[in-house]
């Protein structure tokens, strides 16, 4: 492949970060031993004296007015301590887009209407779970059923029922839209020799984190509340719970125990968190809710199903001239994180390649289905499935190798999308070249036997969003670092480890910065009463970059103080820099002039008459465009075998080369890659909801199939190390974006093997057999 194809490639990506001691090492997870022993506590594992068990009553109908709710039998049932309906609550709506209150469309319990099968209607707290369950069945609700809509088309029809008729600003079922216009799109298409115009449908899937959601609330004597909850965003839960309860924010304390995975599905306030807190206040006793898998699969958040139409123009030589991209998101009954997904889908539609002209029209549509929310990739798996499939179609039509076509159009360091974003580092071309070499792309494409195929898919992802729709007055990321005279430090942060490993990675960043051992750092995350305000939580791949930067800020403040001590002790000329490494603080040019980290702290404490040495660090992205401070990039090649008689696809091997900036923890990054691949594989081939009239029929893992150990392909990967100047030690996003390329790569390989081009995910044996003529009726 020839770099000259893309003139901007003369610009080199900046080299890797080399001066590292802890950063770049595969430090094992700090929480792993406890997890291996079964000692790690998740919310569902917790028990408090006098604790009550909560259970939710959910709507059995997709759209109805509530005429009457009779709780008398349930309330009188022995062992039941509280029963609540929407009417008992303050009736305050919530939603993550606080900046735009009309988007906050959800009540903790339905007030007068239900909008999907599973909508929360009432809650019970009882002395044991069986009694709670029994009491739920004794609540009698009279519904006045309304016509319901189950697809985007039905929801947009002229006479469609209004799902949120109580929001004045809405005229139909479109809750939010988003436009992006770059360049003159119509003129640009005039220059095209080839125009592709395709429609795609993308399906909803479940996060399927192994730990079902759970929440435990405890009241305290002064009317304040503690909530332990399985969440990715303690601060968001604190704020929204306080506002729905009508309490000052500081009266709600949210503590995050170990969390069994989130993937975007645990970043909003949810009904059971409210009900636990509200009933704890009413009863004066702790109340715990634990969801069932059936509840999770039938009523939990999902990745958005979308209908996308995309028109792309190419010149004969493969140069892209324009893209016109239109997405309709099936939002389900509430906004959830849909507005952000609508926004991001449009941004991702413009990523990876240079589009001289780009138009996006995105619409978030209410339907009477389970609400969709944020899920790993957040608008990108859909947008880039379309992008990548069209690149593969174009390569075929133009008779250009798909990787060459990508390199020709690839974004490089310094590229901008006018008015939207700037790419401060990109190892995309290098990823494409590396993956071609590793997978033996050219040789295999020329030589694979029938029914075997090879395909490619690529991705780019954000390292945290710069937008503040949550409208926090606080910093996006914050931490406190306490340094002690025994040479150790304590990091307090609201950044939430949900299994992705941030407690370990953030500890590595602090250890590197202070020059002390990782083992000597204790981490507290997260407890909103102790950890500094604020942190928007774990989503959008924001933690490493944003919290990492906050930690560097705090570490620098500590180091400045300790440098003074070294300076005083050795009477250092002010031109000397003080370095921190190997548990010491010393003059960089004269390392013998130095003291241990602990001694330096002790000196500072003594010279400050006993004051503790602490520093707070903050990070908020400012003036970084509309999207993110930094993007990851990568390319993935999938090899498949398709059984011609059954249409069953076996993914044999997946090869990836990706750029996530400086790798802080290689083992963690590889683990993220492998986990993302699992999710991408399920998205492409096996995961799908069966929904009839708004009711999800497959509510167990037997029927909702996530890949098992046997289904996984052989995996090879390589990291292209670039230095991202916006990130701590040059790091940027790793792991979320990797959920994107697998589906398009597999689809391309299936096309290569069978001639079936999937524009309607997932790829099923039936669709393949129809395309190959094996099924005709």
């Amino acid at each position: 492949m020839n770099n000259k194809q893309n003139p901007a490639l003369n610009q080199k990506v900046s080299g890797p970060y080399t001066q590292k001691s802890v950063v770049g090492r595969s430090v094992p997870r700090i929480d792993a031993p406890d997890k291996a022993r079964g000692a790690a506590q998740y919310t569902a594992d917790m028990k408090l004296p006098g604790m009550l068990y909560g259970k939710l009553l959910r709507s059995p109908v997709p759209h109805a007015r509530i005429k009457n709710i009779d709780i008398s039998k349930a309330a009188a049932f022995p062992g039941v301590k509280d029963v609540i309906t929407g009417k008992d609550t303050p009736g305050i709506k919530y939603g993550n887009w606080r900046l735009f209150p009309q988007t906050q469309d959800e009540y903790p319990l339905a007030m007068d209407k239900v909008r999907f099968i599973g909508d929360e209607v009432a809650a019970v707290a009882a002395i044991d779970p069986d009694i709670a369950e029994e009491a739920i069945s004794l609540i009698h609700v009279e519904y006045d059923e309304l016509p319901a809509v189950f697809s985007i088309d039905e929801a947009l029809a002229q006479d469609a029922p209004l799902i949120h008729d109580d929001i004045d600003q809405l005229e139909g079922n479109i809750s939010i839209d988003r436009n992006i216009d770059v360049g003159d799109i119509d003129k640009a298409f005039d220059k095209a020799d080839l125009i592709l115009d395709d429609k795609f449908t993308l399906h909803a899937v479940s996060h399927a984190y192994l730990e079902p959601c759970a929440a435990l609330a405890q009241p305290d004597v002064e009317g304040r509340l503690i909530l332990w909850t399985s969440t990715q965003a303690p601060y968001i839960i604190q704020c929204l719970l306080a506002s729905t309860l009508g309490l000052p924010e500081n009266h709600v304390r949210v503590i995050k125990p170990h969390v069994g995975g989130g993937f975007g599905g645990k970043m909003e306030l949810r009904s059971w968190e409210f009900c636990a807190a509200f009933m704890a206040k009413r009863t004066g006793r702790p109340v715990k809710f634990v969801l069932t898998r059936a509840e999770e699969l039938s009523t939990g958040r999902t990745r958005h199903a979308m209908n996308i139409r995309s028109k792309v123009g190419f010149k004969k030589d493969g140069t892209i001239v324009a893209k016109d991209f239109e997405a309709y998101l099936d939002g389900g009954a509430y906004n959830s994180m849909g507005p952000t997904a609508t926004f991001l889908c449009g941004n991702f539609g413009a990523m990876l390649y240079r589009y001289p002209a780009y138009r996006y029209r995105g619409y978030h549509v209410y339907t009477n289905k389970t609400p969709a929310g944020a899920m790993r990739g957040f608008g990108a798996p859909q947008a880039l499935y379309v992008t990548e499939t069209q690149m593969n179609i174009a390569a075929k039509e133009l008779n250009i190798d798909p990787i060459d076509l990508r390199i020709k159009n690839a974004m490089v360091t310094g590229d901008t999308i006018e008015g939207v974003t700037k790419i401060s580092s990109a190892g995309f071309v290098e990823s494409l070249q590396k993956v071609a070499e590793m997978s033996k792309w050219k040789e295999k494409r020329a030589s694979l036997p029938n029914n075997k195929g090879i395909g490619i898919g690529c991705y780019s992802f954000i390292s945290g969003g710069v937008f503040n729709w949550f409208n926090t007055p606080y910093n996006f990321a914050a931490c406190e670092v306490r340094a002690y005279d025994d040479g150790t430090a304590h990091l307090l942060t609201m950044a939430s480890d949900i299994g992705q490993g941030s407690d370990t990675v953030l500890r590595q960043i602090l250890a590197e910065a202070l020059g002390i051992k990782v083992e000597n750092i204790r981490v507290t995350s997260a407890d909103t009463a102790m950890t500094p305000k604020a942190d928007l939580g774990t989503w959008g791949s924001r933690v490493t970059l944003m919290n990492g930067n906050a930690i560097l800020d705090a570490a620098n403040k500590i180091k400045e103080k300790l440098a003074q001590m070294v300076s005083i002790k050795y009477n250092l000329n002010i031109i000397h820099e003080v370095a921190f490494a190997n548990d010491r603080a010393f003059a960089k040019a004269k390392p013998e002039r130095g003291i241990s980290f602990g001694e330096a702290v002790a000196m500072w404490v003594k010279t400050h008459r006993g004051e503790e040495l602490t520093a707070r660090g903050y990070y908020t992205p400012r003036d970084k465009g509309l999207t993110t401070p930094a993007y990851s990039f990568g390319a993935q090649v999938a090899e498949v075998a398709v059984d011609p008689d059954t249409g069953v696809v076996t993914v044999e091997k997946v090869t990836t080369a990706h750029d996530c900036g400086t790798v802080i923890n290689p083992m963690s990054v590889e683990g993220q890659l492998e986990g993302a691949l699992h999710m991408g594989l399920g998205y492409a081939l096996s995961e799908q909801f069966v929904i009839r009239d708004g009711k999800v029929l497959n509510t167990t893992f037997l029927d909702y199939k996530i890949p098992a150990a046997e289904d996984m392909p052989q995996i090879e990967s390589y990291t292209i190390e670039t230095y991202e100047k916006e990130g701590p030690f040059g790091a940027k996003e790793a792991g979320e974006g990797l959920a994107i390329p697998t589906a398009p790569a597999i689809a391309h390989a299936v096309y290569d093997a069978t001639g079936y081009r999937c524009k309607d995910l997932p790829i099923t044996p039936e669709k393949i057999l129809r395309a190959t003529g094996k099924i005709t009726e």
Partner: protein
Amino acid sequence: MAKVNITLHINGDTYSVAVEPCRTLAEVLREDLNLIGTKIGCGTGDCGACTVLIDGKSVTSCLSLAVESDGKEITTIEGLSTKGDTLHPIQEAFVKEGAIQCGYCTPGMILSAKYLLDRNPEPTELEIRQALSGNLCRCTGYHRIVKAVMVASKKINQQNGPSKASGSNEESD
């Protein structure tokens, strides 16, 4: 419902408990005996998070009734290494090989791996994948879990005397 008195031998200790006949072993372990290492990911026998060993065999405890275990030997994750901070070689390999992310599948995975290695001390990669196919993991893609089981198998075989495996390469990372 009338309670039944049963005796459970768990991790070397004997517990007498009165349980309703409809209660699952997972519930009794978690709720009555505070052995919270046994996780519930589905409650329908499909994910393997609740795996324990009963008389040495792996069982999904969310589907098995506590009364069925009356008088039996049960190993939960808490019983794998009973001494302070030492870990069983499988646990140790899971930690070192990065096989643990959120950790919710981990106890069940480790016990399924133990069941496999007890019967088949030197499994192939395919045998490991098959043996773990009843244990779902959403975080790791299984890759490092499989590797950890291979590493653990070597270590256990070394501990149990001279390895039968020919001088194979040491794991490098």
